[in-house]
């Protein structure tokens, strides 16, 4: 090790790989991954979130995790967003494209994508 910069470079490179274990993130993206969810295509949606969060450099503040069946199987894949001080947002019938939009507008932009939420799905 010849310089502090070299150490900092390793730290930056590795940080994303261990941040998962700190449990200090604010936003949680929870993907329903029961049999119904997986059958409806939750797996690519989960992967889209995981990759998107990493690509946008949000690993420090956003956790992508999974849960079991929430009980609304007809709306799967279901994705819920938890943020401190805000009400939970439930997105339904998610796809990879929708996931990308939610990531960009809701997670980064702070604006709920109303058209994908369970509230608008029920109205339709």
């Amino acid at each position, binding site marked *: 090790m010849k310089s502090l910069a070299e150490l900092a470079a390793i730290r930056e490179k590795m940080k994303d790989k261990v941040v998962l274990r700190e449990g200090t993130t604010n936003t949680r993206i929870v993907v329903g991954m029961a049999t119904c969810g997986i059958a409806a295509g939750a797996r690519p949606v989960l992967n889209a979130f*995981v990759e998107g969060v990493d690509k946008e450099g949000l690993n420090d503040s956003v956790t992508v995790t999974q849960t079991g069946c929430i009980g609304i199987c007809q709306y799967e894949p279901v994705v819920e967003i938890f943020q401190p001080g805000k009400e939970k947002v439930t997105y339904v019938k998610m796809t990879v494209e929708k996931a990308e939009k939610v990531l960009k507008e809701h997670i980064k932009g702070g604006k709920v994508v109303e058209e994908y939420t369970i509230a608008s799905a029920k109205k339709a």
Partner: protein
Amino acid sequence: MIRAHVLCCGGTGCTSSGSPKIQSAFQAEIEKNGLADEIKVVQTGCFGLCALGPVVIVYPDGTFYSNVTVDDVAEIVSEHLLKGRVVERLVYNETNDDHAAEHASLNDTTFYKSQMRVALRNCGVINPESIEEYIAMDGYAALGKVLTEMTPDEVIQTILDSGLRGRGGAGFPTGMKWKFASGNRGNVQKYVCCNADEGDLGAFMDRSVLEGDPHALIEAMAIAGYAIGADQGYVYVRAEYPIAVQRLQIAIDQAREYGLLGKDIFGTGFNFDLDIRLGAGAFVCGEETALMTSIEGKRGEPRPRPPFPAVKGLFGKPTVLNNVETYANIPRIILLGADWFKSIGTEKSKGTKVFALGGKIRNTGLVEVPMGTTLRHIIEEIGGGIPNGKKFKAAQTGGPSGGCIPAHLIDTPIDYDNLLEIGSMMGSGGLIVMDEDNCMVDIARFFLDFTVDESCGKCTPCRVGTKRLLEILDKIISGNGEMEDLDRLEELSNYIKSASLCGLGQTAPNPVLSTLRYFREEYIAHIVDKKCPAGVCKKLVQFTIDAEKCIGCGMCAKNCPASAIVRTDYVAPGHKLASFKIDSSKCVKCGACLPTCKFKAISKG
């Protein structure tokens, strides 16, 4: 892209209960399910809940699985990792209620929340065999900081200001040690040593740091080297810790490869290298002068102080010698500052302390709490209390050098000075909990038996004195004690304390003195009533059968390994068969008959 980490504990405790097999089963099962690109399996150091091993933690949710077996792996992978359903039956459930899944995350448990992990910050979190994971957790940043921004004197001042005291037992201020050894930098060969010869009964925090975060030790020793002007360090670790030795060696090799040990570290011209020296496990080698004598290749015996190691230590050169846990605090103090460290703890004991919980306690394992935490909090909250509804009797701290804390002092805030005041000592942090079934005379005898074995024999007070103490105790527990023996015990103890050469002898009588202080009535019961109130001392225990209650079924006789139970001619009124009796000359006092009697006819007393 990795979305989840499965952390398998690879500490000694979990390894011996089969964690390597579990880790490879996870690897195989994850591959079988096509999840290898999404889920990473990581081997970590000890997380502390050794009683529940093997433990597995799944991140990012932090789900804490305990007592995992190879057969459970497929279920965890298909349910949790694939479908996101926590396998509730394996989740650590400290309250034993039906809502395990609600506090599935480790971070929500009382065990974890009540702790403050400074020395153990990375244990159970990073892979100890990956220097890059350590660097990601700000590893080696403290070394970088001292080498590029601080003078050696500033480093020493920071450690002095922090109030850090030695975690190995005596609690000597670490900064002072460094300062004493700091003179004449650059002109004299000096050494930095680490005492990893953890010998206190029941203590294993040093092993845990070596196994779980070995780079923290390397970084801290390099910092100490810079502070006092030493270019060579030695870690003295017992050969009985094979995993610790192996991981430390891997860590040293990695640090050399990354240029964090060796020549011209960070391009600052500072050189430092580190080697391991293995000890054969003699308790006396945890004493600093004996440890250095052993590193020199001689028989591990202490030598008189002064001269202190800071003046004339290893190979006769100025040497700084600290304990593993002490070193583990150093990088944090450098990075976060002396004021941060000072803000934790009590007036004279700063920072945190790791305790190894053992004995009659639910969560045996390792916990780290701020100094000044009460014994009650450690035992009842973090330790989960005493199993089987038994009553707390005493806690033993400081191993064979320490003493007992009786139940009425359970609310004492634990720090160096309070413990000394109540006749015990911090020691390295072993904390053995005892309940009403423990006999305090027997406990004192147990520790003394250990010191008699471990006395190196160099000085007479320790070699002969402890042996005589043990003989007096043996006399008492075999029912031949006299009241004068108590005075003899005290008198001899005080001679041994004041006349022994090193810490081993100077502290060896402590278990006797402290049990005499707090549990004198138990000694008297042994001597005067010839009874052991806890029913432990075999020679003072009698098993008897109440002939009136005995129905003559013979279950006890069948289960007696010594054939000491025989049928009598007496048939109690209302019974059909003749009753049994115990032949006390044959009885080995094993107690096997007790649970076999459904009619509660057998009593112990």
